[in-house]
């Protein structure tokens, strides 16, 4: 972008009448005000975004009668931690969390594994129908999950997996997104690496696990976080495929809790916080990886 000859700025008479010291002080004040304004805006937005979570935490520590108090109590002066114990025990949140944990881990492992294998094949191997198959993988992203439920419920029932961990996990053991991400990541590795490894006697399998995957760690981490997030937050499939508390996951359990605790909303709120805690912990630790893994080749298109 070249610097065009812009018209000369109009004479700022007010400015010309100020002394240099006044001018410096003025600019300084402007900058401080500007900074204050910016912080104010950021803080306002942060409050608006955080408010629902904040009020949830507050209400989970109030007595049910205090929750309906008008004006609403914005700070728990006498926190009732019992609502968390109630949600955990009577509300069965403990069972739900365990179920979610098991299913999520299975799904995450499955997705990451199949993504690594498929991504490697697409990135490093030559075979007929490669492009077609890659399109097939991507095409799965075009099919909304709700479109498949009619048949999937029947398939899982007929396989005898209704109301089981396997039934909850099996349809999600692979994603097109994962294969895409791993392929992009593997493709950013220099070609000579593969040739050098081949010279050293590394077969594909060893190269994959000893060289490629370690180098692709940010992407693997990002994929794991995404897979964990998505699996933990699943709603429709567990709703369809579980029939009792033994296998219910935390999202469905939370809905259940809301329905049975209509007059004890503090328990419902406590349950919501319990459901969110694992993800908060996960994200606090892996926030950087998420962003890095994404920019490692995917978003740029």
């Amino acid at each position, binding site marked *: *972008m070249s610097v065009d000859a812009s018209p000369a700025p109009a004479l700022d008479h007010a400015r010309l009448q100020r002394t240099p010291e006044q001018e410096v002080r003025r600019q300084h004040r402007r900058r401080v005000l500007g900074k204050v304004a910016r*912080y104010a805006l950021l803080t306002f*937005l*942060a409050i608006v*975004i*955080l408010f629902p*979570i904040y*009020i949830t935490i507050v209400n989970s520590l109030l007595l049910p009668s205090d929750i*309906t108090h*008008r004006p*609403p109590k914005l700070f728990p002066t006498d926190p009732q931690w019992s609502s968390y114990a109630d949600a955990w025990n009577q509300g069965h949140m403990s069972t739900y969390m365990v179920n979610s944990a098991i299913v999520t881990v299975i799904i995450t492992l499955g997705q990451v594994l*199949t993504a690594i*294998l*498929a991504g490697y*094949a697409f990135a490093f*191997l030559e*075979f007929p129908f*490669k492009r077609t*198959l890659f399109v*097939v*993988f991507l095409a799965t*992203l075009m*099919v*909304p999950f*709700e*479109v*498949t*439920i*009619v*048949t999937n419920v029947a*398939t899982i029932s007929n396989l005898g997996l209704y109301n089981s961990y396997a039934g909850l996990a099996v*349809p*999600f*053991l*692979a994603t*097109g997104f994962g294969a895409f991400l791993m392929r992009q990541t593997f493709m950013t590795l220099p070609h000579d690496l593969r040739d050098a490894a081949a010279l050293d006697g590394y077969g*594909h399998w060893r190269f994959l696990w000893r060289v490629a995957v370690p180098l692709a760690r940010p992407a693997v981490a990002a994929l794991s976080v995404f897979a964990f*997030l998505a699996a933990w*937050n699943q*709603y429709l499939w567990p709703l*369809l495929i579980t029939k009792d508390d033994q296998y219910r996951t935390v*999202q*469905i359990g*939370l*809905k259940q809790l*809301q329905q049975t605790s209509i007059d004890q*909303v503090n328990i*419902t*709120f406590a349950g*919501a916080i319990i*459901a*969110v805690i694992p*993800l908060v912990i996960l*994200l606090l630790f892996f*926030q950087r990886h998420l*962003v890095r893994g*994404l*920019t490692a080749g995917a*978003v740029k*298109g």
Partner: protein
Amino acid sequence: MSASTAPGRLVTPAPPPPPTPARRARRRRERGLAYLLLLPALVVFVTFVFWPLVHNVYLGFFRNPPFPGLPSKYVGLDQYKSVLTSQDFFDSVKTTFLFAILTVPIGIVLGLGLAVLAHQQLRGIGVYRTIFSSTVATSVAVAAVIFGTLMSPAVGLLPWLGLDTNPPILQNPDWALIAVALVTVWQTLGLTFILMASGLQSVPDELFEAAEVDGAGAWSRFWHVTLPMMSPTIFFTVVVGTIFAFQSFGQIDILTQGGPLKKTNVLTYYIYDTLQRQSDPGKAAVLAVALFLITLILALAQLRFLERRVSYER
């Protein structure tokens, strides 16, 4: 022929050596390995994505009994005709589009705005970035349970904020969809922010500096530098966001169950309700086929029309 035109290439590369038996064997093994590596994912896709797609079409030809055990009746295209021309179907499609229009543009504008604001060099900006991305830890169910209670007329906060309606917002045919859209926008804001922020980070700072040197104000910088450079990210988010909007289900199941008066009966909920409550897999399959075709056409349309407006780095 291509070699001479590609910049940087001065010599035509040598043709590949003729295949020896050893090389052929290696290539055979490689192909075998490739298919083996793809097999696990393919099995999952065929069984749980492509087969259901095809099977839906077949299921739509049958009228099912209200519960399993009785025979299904083959009716050819009659069920397709009756379902796809019904008022309920039209209303559902309209509601779904309305929902997407309410959530996707607002979500992107907000996400982009927050990302730009959080891109500044201020002390403690990291805290704000964490807060803006915080809703990524919430799920649709968590958000719906929280907002559902906050918007409930008995225990909610809307009357205190002066925002209550009569009838209460989630039972109000005019406002229910907007309320559900609001919950969705809040819940997805974290992810949208992260996408936008990472897209913004990949815009080289030199471009911003050059624009500033040229005398471009903040708004002009945004319009002429940020937006074009962000267009791949925005495009990606629009496509993915629309797909997600069309797949929304959990919040409707928890907040409104398709009501009031079917005003939030998006296509996904319609399918679920038909399959579970009405126990009508044939009709649900017809609706599923329709949902797939609509999503496909929409995605392809977006890919065609929007990609043209995306500017890529040279």
